[in-house]
């Protein structure tokens, strides 16, 4: 654990010794700030005059502004996340420092956790930016504390899950650009699969003429497949949570997602032992 901490400190510091950290956090702050101001102004206009915007009364603050804004922040993190994660292991490989890392007394898991923690550190810095917006809001609007906390936690979990994917991709290549592009590509593919699933009809596609048992099993597989595709996009489970509705399966989704890709990263790093 102490070793992970050493790796993490070095990794996190190097984000801010190089311009990467400032660029990433700065871009995030600029875009999320603009988005926040725009949606806040829009909400203000709507609440002054709900009728013109087809609302019967002043719309719910949490539902109309807060939750979409938090989901947007999550999506934004997914967009610039590859810039944070692409260097984690690919850069070590590229500049040969992997040889130092792997000949120092560090276990593979200590390296992986250290790197992952450093990426989560970057995520926390970005969450800090979001928290500033929310603090300002809470001075003017009464928002329940729990909603704020869970909202932030949602964005964090979504980012954390996505960063584990980025870490894994970074472990399979020695080129940062490849790692970044692949991470982004994978997210996009998951997203597209999700929107395909939206268009899939709910009904059992098996023809009526087939036997009942066969038809049922096809239907079962189809439902499973459809549900699976549906939940692939990484923000699917964040939508409800961002409103402050916490369900165990949403949390489990993100925790398992991260655990799965950390496990793959571990395997990928370990593969040097059996590959030539």
């Amino acid at each position, binding site marked *: 654990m*102490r*070793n992970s901490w*050493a*790796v993490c*400190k*070095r990794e996190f*510091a*190097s984000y801010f*010794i*190089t311009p990467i950290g400032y660029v990433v956090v700065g871009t995030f702050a600029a875009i999320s700030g603009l988005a926040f101001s725009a949606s806040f102004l829009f909400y203000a206009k709507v609440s002054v005059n709900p009728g013109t915007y087809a609302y019967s009364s002043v719309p719910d603050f949490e539902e109309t502004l807060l939750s979409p804004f938090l989901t947007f922040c999550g999506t934004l993190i997914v967009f610039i996340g590859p810039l944070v994660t692409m260097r984690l292991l690919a850069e070590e490989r590229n*500049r*040969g*420092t*992997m*040889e*130092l890392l*792997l*000949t*120092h*007394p*560090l*276990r593979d898991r200590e390296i992986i956790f250290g790197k992952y923690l450093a990426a989560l550190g970057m995520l926390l810095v970005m969450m800090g930016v979001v928290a500033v917006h929310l603090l300002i809001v809470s001075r003017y609007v009464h928002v329940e504390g729990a909603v704020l906390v869970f909202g932030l936690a949602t964005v964090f979990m979504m980012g954390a899950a996505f960063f584990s994917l980025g870490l894994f991709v970074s472990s399979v290549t020695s080129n940062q650009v490849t790692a970044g592009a692949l991470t982004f590509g994978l997210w996009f593919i998951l997203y597209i699969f999700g929107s395909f699933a939206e268009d899939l009809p709910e009904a059992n596609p098996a023809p009526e003429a087939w036997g009942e048992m066969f038809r049922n099993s096809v239907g079962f597989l189809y439902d499973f497949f459809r549900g699976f595709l549906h939940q692939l996009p990484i923000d699917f489970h964040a939508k409800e949570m961002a409103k402050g509705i916490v369900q165990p399966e949403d949390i489990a989704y993100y925790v398992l997602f991260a655990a799965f890709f950390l496990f793959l990263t571990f395997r990928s790093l370990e593969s*040097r*032992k059996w590959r*030539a």
Partner: protein
Amino acid sequence: MIEAKGLTKYYGQLAAVEDVSFSVDRGEILGFLGPNAAGKTTTMRILTGFSPPSRGTAVVAGYDIKSDPIEVKRRVGYLPESVPLYGEMLVSSFLEYVAEVKGVERGRRRAEVGRVMERCGLLEVTRRVCRNLSKGYRQRVGLAQALIGDPPVLILDEPTVGLDPRQVIEIRQVIKELGQDHTVLLSTHILPEVTMVCERVLIINRGRIVAQDTVANLARGTARTLEEIFISAVAQDAADDQPAAPVAAATGGGAL
């Protein structure tokens, strides 16, 4: 301290090292000689736990590299051939990081970093960024990180490559001093270096050991220099084994 038993490493079909066995005692400096691509770096990477052997194993500082890699890594200081460094870090913070990773206690870290920096002549570059260091200083920082934590075994892959003559002499002196209380495995293709620094030589060619003895013994009875011994051992091996193998490849890398 180092005992290699039948180390073999395949890269695909190609055997980079084949059945390499040797041992180095405590307080001994073993010169590891061979033309380029002979398998020196591969052997060292196996001993340091960077890449595992396809067959065979080694015991380093009392621990098996396959079953106790972490214990081995705690006791080995390794200077890789290309001297990879974290370019953006200061020399001092890089060495402090290495000290932390190697398990030097918090209170002793600064003193330990100071000790190795003094030993490797780095005191005037402590606040420089690794990326901007000259080749000579890079090499010294690489050596310094290997020395941190005072590991009993040192594995140095071509430590004097790319240095100017004065630096070469300095580094050789450092290695010689280290050899008094450390076990050192030193690879090089600069032959005079071996005569100056090492007690014993191991010549490797195309992945196999072709000669292994003390410098004095290898030259005994003849007036031959180490160069001649090296060339004849390497050429002999090429002629014995594969008549078709180009002899030029074997002798060309000798850096004479």
